[in-house]
């Protein structure tokens, strides 16, 4: 349930918080778009579009700096308390996380030129779906932040499992694929990194949702158990399964 607190007596304080909130919202939108467009470029085998994604990352970095400047100014000039303080601190942390998500988008885009040189790989069809799930998590985590919606934040945390499942399945498939034919190793290795990046995006969206939940309620939710099981997967074990 979204919670919209009543206005501050000093209106310019509300304006500054709104400004920060909308900047964070924009950053989230942009980071989500970077992920989608990088994966899009991958599947359209469009190296040029991928380069645009790489170039646009600088904008996201600049926005992060602006968010930090705004948040620090509010802390210095307004001395925020209670839910205001929690929200400003959350904004600072969230902007850094979004910047990181942007880096993953850039990293995915950077791999596109190499992958367009190789033949398409079968298991990679899961990637667009995984990217959609991860982008939707970012979008909803940021909606939860802007609307101060603790319930939506909690839902986002629960959805990370889905992205992890995609990753586990892709990891196994790519491993098998590489064993079948050494020519598949280069593109598969790149796809593995892309999948790992998307898996991390899901984790970061979950972190944002956790920060939003704390900012809104003042309570921490219990730590979620990680569903990335690939740390214990080996090719041999994979075959025995």
């Amino acid at each position: 349930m979204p919670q919209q607190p009543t206005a501050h007596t000093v209106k310019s304080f509300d304006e500054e918080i709104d400004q920060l909130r909308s900047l964070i919202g924009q950053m989230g939108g942009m980071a989500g778009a970077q992920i989608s467009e990088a994966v899009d470029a991958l599947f359209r085998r469009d190296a040029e579009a991928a380069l645009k994604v790489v170039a646009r990352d600088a904008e996201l970095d600049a926005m992060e700096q602006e968010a930090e400047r705004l948040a620090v100014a509010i802390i210095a000039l307004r001395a925020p308390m209670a839910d205001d303080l929690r929200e400003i601190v959350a904004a600072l942390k969230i902007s850094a996380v979004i910047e990181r998500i942007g880096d993953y988008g850039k990293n995915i885009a950077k791999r596109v030129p190499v992958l367009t040189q190789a033949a398409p790989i079968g298991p990679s069809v899961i990637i667009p779906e995984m990217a959609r799930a991860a982008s939707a998590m970012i979008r909803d985590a940021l909606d939860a932040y802007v609307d101060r919606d603790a319930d939506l934040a909690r839902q986002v945390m629960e959805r990370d499992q889905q992205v992890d499942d995609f990753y586990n399945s892709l990891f196994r498939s790519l491993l098998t694929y590489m064993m079948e034919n050494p020519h598949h190793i280069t593109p598969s290795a790149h796809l593995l990194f892309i999948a790992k990046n998307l898996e991390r995006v899901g984790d970061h969206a979950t972190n944002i949702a956790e920060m939003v939940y704390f900012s809104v309620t003042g309570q921490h939710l219990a730590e979620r158990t990680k569903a990335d099981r690939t740390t214990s997967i080996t090719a041999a074990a994979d075959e025995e399964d």
Partner: protein
Amino acid sequence: MNDQAFSSVAPAGGTGAEKPKMTARDVRVFYGAFEALKGVSIDISTENVTAFIGPSGCGKSTFLRCLNRMNDTVAGARVEGSIALDGRDIHDPAMDVVQLRARVGMVFQKPNPFPKSIYDNVAYGPRIHGLATKKPELDGIVEQSLRRAGLWDEVKDRLADSGTALSGGQQQRLCIARAIAVNPEVILMDEPASALDPIATARIEELIDELRGRYAIVIVTHNMQQAARVSQKVAFFHLGNMVEYGDTREIFTNPKQSRTKDYITGRYG
């Protein structure tokens, strides 16, 4: 969120390991027919500085004045409920009010040194309470009090100068030295730094921190940052009720009552 005021049944602050220095139970104050304080229960301990915050007219100063019976001097004021110092009712007819106010000292918003020398300002209390019989003994009390108030080094060479000739911040520390001189157990401070510049304010705040543990300190302040800086416990008053009491850190980062939150975040009214 439940915005219920603290009731008289569950006193705030009663869980400390140390025995509370002062306990108040269901304290009500009436000015004529007007109920200015509507049943406040709290324990005041020596280990913590307790800050009372709240908007003007919320009852925080009224309650502070109850703790050393300063409301006795207000015409038409009536106090109900019980207040005890070391377990003894301060309204007990056998309680000597002058003695009580020596044990529960007070520092006011505006520094109010006597128009006497710095030395006499501090020596006055110990003299009338008979705490020192000989001059060297009195000198010792004056020095120790001025040292504890962080003023000694600034005034040791001019103890005969008038107390009113000191700067505002020094005057306030002189008043704190004066309160300390009679060996109090509790020090009540009503906006002790609101008339001071930021540096003098910082010195008072530092002093409060140094005095903590030796005296039970209660401070009323309109400056939320100050309450956050100097206290370990905060009580928020509103319309004669104590709305919320808790650890300072908790009150300022995650208050439980929406009225507390609205007040400290500047959304009140």
